[in-house]
Every structure is written in structure tokens, then in C-alpha cells.
């Protein structure tokens, strides 16, 4: 089964990376980009009996390791 977990910063949490990228895009002449926030995406292959089981497993992975729930939100998508 293929799935992905998307981890993004909670709103209001400073994203220095996003800010640096915004500035760089401006100096490269890419106009019109207002804000950039950078997150992580994990593309995962896993063995699971069904979708619900897979989802539960990935939620566990996200909580335990893939995200820092103090400052990040995550989202599990089964593909």
C-alpha cells in the first residue's frame, strides 16, 4: 500500500526556511509569490491489511516520529 504523510508547521510558528526561500525567489526575479511555508512529505510503502489499519499505523508513525506535534501538524493520505 502506498501512502503519504504531510507535516507542516502550525500556523503562527516561525518558519525561517520559508522566509529565506521567499526572499531568494524575489531576488531571482520570480514575482508574485507572497508567502512560502515549507513542510515535509513522507512517501511510504507499507504492508497493511486494510486502509483503516494503514491509517492507524501511519498516525502512530506521525505522532511518534515523523512530526513534532508541539509545533507541527500532520495529515495522513492513503493513495
Amino acid at each position, binding site marked *: 500500500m502506498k501512502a503519504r504523510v504531510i507535516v507542516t508547521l502550525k500556523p503562527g510558528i516561525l518558519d525561517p526556511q520559508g522566509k529565506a*526561500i521567499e526572499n531568494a525567489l524575489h531576488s531571482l526575479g520570480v514575482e508574485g509569490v507572497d508567502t512560502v511555508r515549507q513542510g515535509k512529505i513522507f512517501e511510504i510503502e507499507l504492508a497493511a491489511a486494510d486502509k483503516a489499519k494503514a491509517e492507524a499505523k501511519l498516525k502512530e508513525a506521525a505522532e511518534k516520529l515523523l512530526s513534532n506535534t508541539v509545533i507541527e501538524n500532520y495529515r495522513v493520505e492513503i493513495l
Partner: protein
Amino acid sequence: MKAAVLVFPGINRERDMARSLQLVSGKEAAMVWHTDRELPKGTDLVVIPGGFSYGDYLRCGAIAARSPVMEAVRKHADKGGLVLAVCNGFQIACEAGLLPGVLMRNARMKFMCKEVHMRVERSDTPFTRRYNAGSVIRVPVAHGEGNYVADAETLARLEGENLVAFRYASADGVVDPHFNGSMNAIAGILSEKLNVLGLMPHPENHVDPIVGPTDGRRLFESLIETLEAA
């Protein structure tokens, strides 16, 4: 030797580099700001120093590689001018396409600051002529993303054309493939014309006998000798 040390926002080893260049060559290096479009007249060595340009955000070296000054560096290199790219400089050089491949997170995911050994793979280059091929030197590393990765074809070409300059090794010269995960234990590579060297370890931090070992010194002496011979 007329050296130009590039300064990007977030670079932090430019002073170490300038100081070591001065110590070995007796000449002051020019510090060149990232927005400059030209190198100082007569520059014969460009140094891209270590640090965390732009915080190493996005990908290490990515943003710096797209700075105005890099266009001038590319021209300099195309004409055969010497470029020494250390640590973040190596990452910048790869991102800028001056060297192939990319540096990824260390296999053990941690930043590592320690002394390591590396084997000098060849001594017939402007950067290594004062070393003996096959000899082992002690140098410090300080990086979190020094894991050299390239596709199979590039790697085959690097090996085939003998463009690997240094490999991580044990004190007695046995190649250490596990140090940071680098493919073929690559610590440094050369461009095809042998005029661009990128390496992760910091020879500039092993130059001054008051501070510690001095195995990095001969890299700078090699450059001086090369330029004097030219």
C-alpha cells in the same frame, strides 16, 4: 597568490579561511560580497568557504549557488581559474553545477565535529602536489550534510577519470565507507579540468601549529606552488 574569499549571508568560516591563507601565503585575501558581479582584478584563486549560507535552509548551498557572484565564479572556472570549495562551499559548488553530485544528510543524521583521516588519492593536481598520493592526512570535519551522493553514471565517471581527490579512511589508509555515508567514501572531488576542488573537511582549521595539527597546510602550499609555477 591573489585569493578572493566569497562571503554569503550566513557563511561563518570566511575568517578562518582568510587567516589561514594569510598565514601560509603571507598575503591578504580579498573578501568578496555575494552581490558583486565581478571578482577583484587578477584573482587567481576563488575560495568558497564553509558555514551555513542562508541558514542552509531549503537545501544546503542552494540559495547561495544562485547569487550574482557565482556567475563570475563560473566564468573564472571556465577559463581554468582555480576554485577551492570547502564544506558549505562544496555544497554551493555542487548546487551551482561547478561540480557534479550533491551532499545529503549524514547517514547517522547528526552533525559531526571531529578529526578524521582521509587518503590523498592523487598528487598531480594544483591542490595536492605537496602531498603524496596514497598518503593519509588528519583533518577536522564539522558538518551535518556531507554525505556525497551522485547517480551511478556520474560516480562511474568520477572514478573512471580519477576525479576523486580524497576519501575518508582509517589512520593506516583503509577506506572508511561508513563515516558519513558518502558514496565510495568520497570526501572531496575535482572538476574535469582539475581546477575546481570541493571537499567537506576543513584544511583551513589545520594550518596553525599553535592550534593543533597542520596537515591542511600543504593544500595551501600546493596552491601557492601551482600559481608560482604558472
